[in-house]
Each structure stands twice: as structure tokens, then as C-alpha cells.
């Protein structure tokens, strides 16, 4: 599929993602930044986001599995994920981060485990939606 055609179909589908609450207004900002000289911008940033987020969530899971959980590290991971999901407009992922960050303050390992699973689920869901729209995003290989 030619890049522009792919881009166009994805962008059309994005409206569905807005309606369903997967994406928020920040995503429109990204769309505004893609133009003829940078047609791949949105796809590039979104791909980066999925790669980055998957790694973050994996790191978070590893940290949670430790004997002595480093809550400071976990908080940093969630903060980073919240930041990047906010930057691309991944609304559900962002909101999930905001919600489960509280478990960090409470040092609630079970809550954090649960929270990270939900966040992973939202991430996976978003990625599936984008792939369905024809965007060339690498699929999350593991769902832990």
C-alpha cells in the first residue's frame, strides 16, 4: 500500500478512535504536524510510542516481580508512560496510568500488577485498532 494511501485511511479511521475515547485532542495536534514533506510523522511517532510503552510495561512487570519492590522506579516508569501517552493523545492509556499511579503511593503491589495489566490491555487494544485501520504498526508480541 502506498504511504499516502495508508496514511489517509488511517487518518479517516482515527475519527472512530476519537469517538470511542481511545484518542484525544492531542492526536489531532499530531495530525496537524504531518504534511507533504513529513507524511510519515504520525505513524513514526505512534510506532515509537508502542515500542517504548511495551518496553516500559515489561520493565515495570520485572520490577514488580522483585523480592524488594522498588516503588520509586515503578513510579518513574508510570510517569514516563503517562507522559508519552499524553504526548500522542492515547487517552485510555494515559488515564489508566493516572489511576494506577495511586497504587504506587500506597505501595500496593497487587494493585500495581492489576493496573499494569489493564494498561497493557488498553495499549494492545489501541494498537489493534490502528493496525485494523491500515497503519503499519508492529504488533505487541507479548501480552504478559
Amino acid at each position: 500500500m502506498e504511504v499516502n494511501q495508508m496514511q489517509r485511511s488511517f487518518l479517516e479511521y482515527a475519527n472512530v478512535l476519537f469517538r470511542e475515547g481511545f484518542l484525544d485532542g492531542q492526536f489531532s495536534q499530531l495530525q496537524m504536524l504531518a504534511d507533504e514533506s513529513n507524511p510519515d510523522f504520525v505513524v513514526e511517532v505512534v510506532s515509537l510510542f508502542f515500542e517504548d510503552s511495551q518496553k516500559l510495561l515489561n520493565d515495570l512487570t520485572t520490577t514488580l516481580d522483585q523480592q524488594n519492590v522498588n516503588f520509586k522506579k515503578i513510579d518513574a516508569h508510570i510517569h514516563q508512560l503517562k507522559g508519552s501517552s499524553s504526548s500522542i493523545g492515547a487517552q485510555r492509556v494515559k488515564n489508566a496510568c493516572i489511576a494506577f499511579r495511586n497504587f504506587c503511593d500506597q505501595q500496593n503491589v497487587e494493585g500495581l500488577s492489576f493496573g499494569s495489566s489493564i494498561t497493557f490491555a488498553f495499549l494492545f487494544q489501541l494498537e489493534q485498532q490502528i493496525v485494523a485501520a491500515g497503519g503499519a504498526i508492529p504488533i505487541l508480541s507479548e501480552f504478559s
Partner: protein
Amino acid sequence: MGMTAADSQFHVLAVDDSLIDRKLIERLLKTSSYQVTTVDSGSKALEFLGWNGDVRSNPNENEISVSEKNSQEVEINLVITDYCMPGMTGYDLLKKMKESSSLRNIPVIIMSSENVPSRINRCLEEGAEEFFLKPVRLSDVDKLKPHIMKTKCSDIEKPEKEEKQENKESIETSSEIHLQKAQTSTSNTLL
């Protein structure tokens, strides 16, 4: 990444530990016709700015050597930095720049995903021109030019004292604007 500063273009140095945010700010700035260099830490920023480590924290300004100025090969017109970064925070970077005679006149903008009024005020008091709440938008980037131009003009005309006065006056209005922005930031507009 073009290193030679074109006469007609302003060069912005963007500092952020997040790759996604670096990509975003780079695109925002390039779309607004700025030349951009991005780095992932405060220490790399200082390195890029040609900050000569041997000479800085020396309070005796007479000892600042000429070589510090010469080592800054690329002219940076503005630095925009994230606040929360591991190691050197945006605030630390700001402070170091203001303590350096060769870097203190470069306008600095701080960005943060967290709206903490005390943090905002602290940065503005230390000399940051403005504080942007993340995610940064095109409308924020539109606000950069005046800061660059103000510094350029004051380099030629006004003495340093007057410039500091102006910055103080703008602190209150800037923090008001950003607190307002924070309140309205939850209502996102879909285009």
C-alpha cells in the same frame, strides 16, 4: 541536523529525556521554521552549548576566560527543556545557564507534564522566560519568537539590569496565564 546557523533561521536547542517528546518538539519547531537540535539530557545540553566545565561555578566573573565564548560554535537562540529529567533536571540546567556569563542571555523555556504552581514560580524566578504545560502545542511554539527577539534587541541596546527588571514584571502574568491554561487544558478540541 544542520549545524551551521543560517542567517534567516533561529536555532533552538530542545532538551528532553523522552524520545517521543523529542520527536514531537522537533516537529513542532521545524514546522514553525526553526532550526532544531535535540539532546536527551541537561549535561549534553551544556556540552552542546559549549559550556566550559572548568570555568563555571567561579563567582569571580573576571576569571571567565575568553575561550568559554569561543567554544560555543553554534549560536543557540533559545533553549526549551523538560523539567523532569534524571540526573540534571530542567531547573538545574536553567540555573547553570544563568550562572554562566556566556549562556545567561539565552532565553530558556521550561516544559512539564505536571502543573505544580510552586515549581512554575521557582523556574520563573530563576529566570525562565515561560513555562509550558505538556503536551506542547503549535500555539505554544508561536510564543517563542518574542523571547528570542527580546534577547536579541537587549544584546544591542539595553544593559543587563533593565532586562532583569522586565523579566520580574512578566513573572506574575506568565504564571497567571499558565495556571489558567492548566484549568482549560482538560477540554480538548477535536479538529
